[in-house]
Every structure is written in C-alpha cells, then in structure tokens.
C-alpha cells in the first residue's frame, strides 16, 4: 500500500531542548496511534507532519508532496490541536463556518457542512453560544468538529479525547473507527494506552523524542505484561487479605500502609491477580473500599522499559 505520510530522519529541537530525533517512518491508510508520555514528542511530530513547524533535519511528505508551505494539501487534511485555544468571542457556529470559509466552499455548502459537523459532535443546540461559555468537553468537541467539517482524507488528532466524558469518548472513538472504514488515514496521539487500544492495533511509541517501538499493539501489551505491577487495595482487613497472597508465586511483594487499612501488592501477573481477587473478597468477607493501580500509566511503563 502506498504510504500517505512519509518521514525521513525527521529531527526537531527547540534551542537546547530535543523535540524529536531521527524519525523515519511511513504511515498508511487506517488508524495509527501515536503513544507516549507527556513531553515525549507526540505534538512535535504531529506539527511537523502538518507543516506547522520546520524540521531541523529531515523531510516530511504527505501524499508524495512536501508539506511545508504547500497550502493546497490542507484541503485534504484536518487537524485537531491539543491546546485549548479558540477565537473566544465567536460562537461555535461562527467558528466552524469561518474556518470552512477558508476552504473556499460556497455559502450554502458552508452551512450544510457546519451543521453536519456540529451534529456529529452534538453541539447543534449550543452552536449560538460564545465559545468562552463552553465547558471543557464542548470545547474539545468543537475542536474536533473544525477538523472534520471539510471532510478531510487525512485526519490528525492530538489528544482528541482529553476532557471528554466517557460517553463523549466512546462516540469519538466510534466515529474515528468509522472514518477508517471509509479508507481515510487517521493519526491520533494520546498518552493513555487504553484510549489508543480502543481505536487501533497499529501504534508508534514515542519516548524522549525518539521512536521507541512501532507495530502491533500486542507487542507493547506484551512488554507491559512483563512489567511488575503495583495494585493498591483499601479494605476492612488488610492483614487477613495479605496472608492469602503469600502462597501465590506471582506475588512479588506485599506492603502495608501505616494505618493498616490498605496494602500494596507487587505482581508480575496482573491478570491472574485480578481474576483471584473477587473470590478472595467473597470467601473472606472482606469489604473493599477501593482498588487502584498507581503505576498503570504510560510513564511508569516507559520508565520500566527504558530501565530507569
């Protein structure tokens, strides 16, 4: 399949700060997830492939053409920025129609496209309110609406699910998947693994400005599964519960909190532990207040993988 986006030795630094280093890759149609902790270089990569910033070294081609200062390409690209900035004094309707106007559509087409985009993100009822009065979730949906309103072939989304409620997330994920079925290219970044997992199996892992790994999401899942996990359980009888874990070979460590009302369990098999927990709670009549996984985030995984 012909790549839609191609980068060669792409590098970018801001003064002494490295943004991205020596990134060579090809992106084909479908959904590709750019995954990495905050500050990893995801936004820099997305800005480079949309020609918003210049690479210090390397090239970016979109559909075989250089992207920088090639404004024609933007008729087929939709970009949803991560940052929460708008023309605050505009209404949602004015914002979307104004940006559509810059795509040289006729007035009637602008109206119908804006309506469709706002309908998709469920902002039609609030379209005449000024953006300043929008909630975080509404602003996020409005950013998404302007990125899809002109029906682009390539959609670049920088953290599109941040600030959305669970229902809103589900809808956007569903929509992104429907774009994939239409044969479009969707490049989506996130620092939350389950978000990307819900959208695609193809991922690129970025860490400290470098491509750390790329390919099928199962690969990163396997890496994560070898990472010792810490589970915190806040319950009525922490010591009684702890005694049940000692004999299990996949439990590596057990710590108690100073107040004795919670315990931290370190395991190398999270799935086995989670399947054991319900029966343990029921058999021992333990009342559970909270189960959390303090290190279940990408930063912890990356720290582990790079051997910190």
């Amino acid at each position, binding site marked *: 399949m012909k790549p839609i986006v191609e980068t060669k030795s792409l590098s970018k630094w*801001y003064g002494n700060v490295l943004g991205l280093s020596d990134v060579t890759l090809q992106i084909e149609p479908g959904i590709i997830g750019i995954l990495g902790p905050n500050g990893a270089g995801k936004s820099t990569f997305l800005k480079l492939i949309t020609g918003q910033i210049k690479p210090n070294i390397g090239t970016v081609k979109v559909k075989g053409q250089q992207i920088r200062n090639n404004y024609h390409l933007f008729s087929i690209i939709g970009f949803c920025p991560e940052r929460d900035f708008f*023309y605050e004094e505009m209404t949602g309707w004015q914002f979307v129609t104004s940006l559509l*106007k810059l795509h040289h559509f006729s007035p009637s087409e602008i109206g119908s496209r804006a309506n469709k985009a706002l309908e998709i993100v469920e902002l039609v009822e609030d379209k005449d309110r000024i953006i300043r009065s929008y909630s975080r979730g509404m602003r996020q949906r409005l950013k998404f609406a302007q990125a899809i309103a002109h029906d682009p072939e390539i959609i670049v989304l920088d953290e599109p699910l941040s600030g959305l409620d669970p229902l809103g997330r589900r809808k956007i994920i569903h929509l992104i998947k429907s774009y994939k079925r239409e044969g479009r290219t969707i490049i989506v970044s996130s620092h939350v693994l389950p978000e990307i997992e819900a959208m695609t199996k193809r991922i690129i892992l970025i860490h400290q400005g470098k491509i750390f790994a790329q390919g099928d999401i199962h690969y990163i899942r396997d890496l994560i599964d070898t990472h010792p996990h810490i589970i915190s359980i806040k319950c009525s009888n922490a010591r009684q519960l702890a005694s049940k874990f000692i004999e299990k070979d996949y439990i590596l460590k057990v710590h108690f909190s100073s107040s004795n009302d919670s315990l931290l369990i370190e395991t190398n098999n999270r799935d086995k532990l989670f399947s054991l927990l319900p029966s343990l709670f029921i058999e021992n009549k333990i009342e559970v207040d909270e189960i959390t996984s303090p290190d279940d985030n990408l930063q912890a995984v990356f720290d582990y993988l790079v051997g910190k």
Partner: protein
Amino acid sequence: MIQKDTGKLSFFLTSVKNIYSVFLSMGRRAKKTKIFFLFSFLPVVIAFIIKFNQIFSGRGKIHGFYIFSNLIVVFYLQFLILILALFFGTSVASEETEGQTLTYLATRPIPKSAIVLGKYSAYTTLVILMMSVGVLLSFLILNVNNLGNFSLYRILLRDVIVLALGIICYTAFFTFIGTFLKKSILVGLVFSFGWESVIQYFPGSTQRFSIVHYLKSLLPVPRTGRFSFLMFRLEPSPDGLAIFMLFLITAIFLGLACFLFSQKEYILED
C-alpha cells in the same frame, strides 16, 4: 481532492477576500474594537467641551474650522491614528501567536501571505471607519454654526482621506513589526512617539524619513496661531510625491510582513 489553483492570482485574491470577511466580522464584534471605538471618541468629547465652552462663556472668537484643523493634527494625526494603527496592525500576527489560534489558520488551504493581507485589510477598514465617525462628529460639533459653508466639506473630505492614508501606511508598518518582534507594541510606541515625533521637526531632507512628514504635506493646516508649532520646520513634499511615498512605504512593509509571516516559524508556547 487537493484543490489546485487554476488561476493563481484569482485563488490568492479569493483567499484574501475570505480572510478579510472572516476577520472584519470577527473584528466588529471584538471587545478590543469596542474599547478603541470609545477611545476614538476622545476628540469628539474635546470638540464638544470646546464648543460648549465657546457658547456659554461667550468667548467664541476662534473660528470652529480653525479648531477642527488643529484637532486633526494634534489628536488624530499625531496621536489617535498612531495608537489605532499600532494596536490593530501589530495584532495581525501577534494575536494569532499569542492567542495560539494560528494553528487553525495555518492548516487551511490558503497562502500565509493571504492571511496577512486579509487581516490587514479588515483591520484597516475597521480603523478607518472608527476614525471617520469621530472626525465627522468633531467637524459637525465644531462647525455647528457654519454647516451651510460647503467649501468646508471639501477640506473635511481631504482631512479624512489624508488620515485614511496615514492609517493605511502606519498599519502596514506595524503589521510588519508585529510579524517578527515579540515586544511589538513597545517598539511601536517608541517609533510612534519617539522617531515620528522627533524626526519630523528635523530640517532639510531628514524629516522625509518619517511617515508623518508626507501626511502633513497633504494636510490643509493653518500655519499661524496657537498650534502653528506643529508645523514647525515643515518643508512639505509635493502632493504627488507624498502620496507616492505613502503607498510605497505601505507596499514595502506589507510585502515584508507577508514574506516574514510565510517564512518564519512561529513556535506556539505552552
């Protein structure tokens, strides 16, 4: 489908027109415009106070049109149009970078130079309208006893045209400043009330390095009376040359602004 321009010029002009209409409409509603619109009424208030004082104090010897002409030079030419052009001109680029909204414009199928020209045209239109309303009201207030004298309207028209030329030229200069300097307002203030205020009084050809020299050359201002110092040492350029120079300065700085905005990399800060 990638939109490839069949006629490059017509595509460019359509892009400018679209940016113009978006930002004219947005600029009209902007809080900044409302504040500056009120600010541009300052000379109207002054005109009203002067007239009120003349009527009720009985000291109405000074001709209304003489006061109006000086108001044009003192408040409009040397203060108001500079302030308006400075704040609107520098904001062409800086409001996009400081407000971090440049992303939305930079990812549209329009040349970056069209963004500069479209926004510049929209803001210049707004500033000219603001100035014209104020000038017209000031004129009517100060010449309320003499509104039947139609020769005054010809001079009023000339004043408005010269001030509009000043706005066109200054806004182009400040647009240029705004595209490459972070502290563009500060530099603009130094230029407006430093360079422009001083250089114009230099004898010989030095004064021709200021924009205000060409504007003053075109203005029908009385050279005598209390405010004659404002025309101190003015060695006016011929009308044709003054107009040519104002358009040349506008074209040069707009061209530079378009070039810089297209080539410069704006890193939007966190």
